[in-house]
């Protein structure tokens, strides 16, 4: 199979994921309303938190509110911390069929996740528009260059999130009881990525710990870039750290995958 044909196949898988995410009307409407409601509630909470306070930990109210909005949107659009199709297919024993396809299983899984992410984009655009309308969001700091840095950082953040999900999903090859582990992962990732509350507010020891984990590269780094919290040198360093995580996690995924494959072949799935 040529690589062009493989790309076509992957695009088809991705589109299928988009389609199935949009298949049930009530689900589409509910998920759109859900993210809009969440944005409003998050804004209300953070405005209340800042009532009568100008600045805490060097962060002013409008920034904290805007951060919370973007945190909610990121959580929704990344759809990270969620069960991937891979884990489900291993459990249902359908993995053998997947392995027979001409496209690698890892690209298949990633294509599917990208598709699901793409399906979330329209509702998240609505959410951003709503936030702008109620004055809870402002343009990214640093003009065009800032925007570019944010886009790059977001792309890297998405890559880190997808790879982390993939790694967690692959534990399904070793144990069928991954439900609990996935919930722990989701909880840890949501908190440690800074999607709920920025690392700025965390006590020094906690922040120090979280900065050594890949999760902050998923959400906190792109959002720090958005708000211009990182100066020139720091910005470059932050992007480099994200890139480093992508490389490390990709290598790890490769390693785990080859072990998993070995396991499937030896044990017959």
């Amino acid at each position, binding site marked *: 199979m040529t690589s062009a044909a493989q790309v076509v196949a992957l695009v088809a898988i991705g589109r299928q994921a988009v389609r199935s995410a949009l298949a049930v009307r009530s689900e589409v409407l*509910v998920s759109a309303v859900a993210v809009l409601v969440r944005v409003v*509630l998050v804004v209300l909470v953070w405005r*209340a*938190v800042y009532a009568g306070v100008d600045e805490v930990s060097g962060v002013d109210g409008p920034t904290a509110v805007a951060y919370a909005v973007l945190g909610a949107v990121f959580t929704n659009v990344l759809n990270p911390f969620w069960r991937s199709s891979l884990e489900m297919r291993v459990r249902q024993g359908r993995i053998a069929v997947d392995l027979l396809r001409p496209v690698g299983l890892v690209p298949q899984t990633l294509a599917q996740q990208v598709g699901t992410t793409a399906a979330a984009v329209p509702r998240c655009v609505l959410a951003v528009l709503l936030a702008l309308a109620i004055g809870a969001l402002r343009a990214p700091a640093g003009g065009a260059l800032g925007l570019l840095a944010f886009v790059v950082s977001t792309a890297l953040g998405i890559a880190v999130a997808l790879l982390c999900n993939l790694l967690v999903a692959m534990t399904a090859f070793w144990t069928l*009881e991954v439900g*609990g582990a996935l919930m722990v992962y*989701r909880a840890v990732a949501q*908190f440690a990525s800074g999607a709920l509350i920025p690392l700025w*507010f965390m006590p020094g020891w906690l922040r120090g710990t979280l900065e050594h984990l890949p999760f902050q590269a998923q959400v906190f780094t792109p959002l720090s870039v958005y708000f211009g919290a990182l100066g020139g040198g720091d910005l470059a360093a932050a992007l480099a750290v994200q890139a480093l995580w992508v490389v490390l996690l990709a290598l790890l995924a490769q390693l785990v995958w080859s072990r998993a494959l070995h396991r499937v072949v030896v044990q017959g799935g």
Partner: protein
Amino acid sequence: MADEAGEAVGVAAPAVRAPWRPQLQEVSPLRAWWVLMAASLKVVFAYRSNLVNTALGSVALQGSQLLFVGVLLHRFEEVGGWGFGEVALLFAMRLCAHAVCTVPFGQHSVIDFLINEGDYDRLLLRPVSPFLQLLAWRFNPGSLGDLSLGVVVLVVAAQLAPVDWTPGTVVFLVLTIVAGGLVEAGVQFALSSLSFRLRATWSLKVTVDTTFADFGPYPLGVFGTVGSLALTFVLPLAFIAYLPATALLGRTDELLLPARAAYSSLAVGPLLFWAGYRAFVHQSRHYDSPAG
């Protein structure tokens, strides 16, 4: 060929047997529920590592929210005028009420699956109320995580909160937690009843669940007038923990409603649960078992 039929029947009927028509005893609904529940518990306890894993997963999920609220109060000292101890009590009451919902009633989460896969057929073929059978369909060990974390946090928060604990307030706390659980269960069953027609209510229910979990630990005032009213009368979040908490904390003066409303959960909980149950029973008429 007609002969063949006769032959087969002849072979099949060996020595004369007495017809099998046993006398059946009446079985009370409660006993039937317990028989099924015991079987589900047996399955859960047979896979002990999964039990522990899932319970820990639930603890982590609720714990991340606790951590978030903790960090927030650590920095800001109060939210909507409520201090650390007060928010802690509110959080704990909400979580315990959630456990009251998930331990016995958590199986509402599988209704989409039962309907779409046709497993709901089974519930209609047994001489037990399908609703009770649904409750005992499986046992979700995650609910034990909710319960244990809830109780631990409640015990700690009870010390921190400025409440004068008397036998009366303790009884009120317990009753109100049960009522809060019934509010949540009632809402979830009402939503589940839509599954019989819509087929997919999963994301609706998850959305409501996470809204309760993520926005339950704040005093309602932070959501403004419209928000407060919406979270009282559209999505009855206020009845789960906030209203009774204002009674315990002596903060009923901040309510938009008369002070007596702080005690209304005790009635609203059972009422909403009953309404959710009725909606479920009523809508189940529309079940159309998938072909096959």
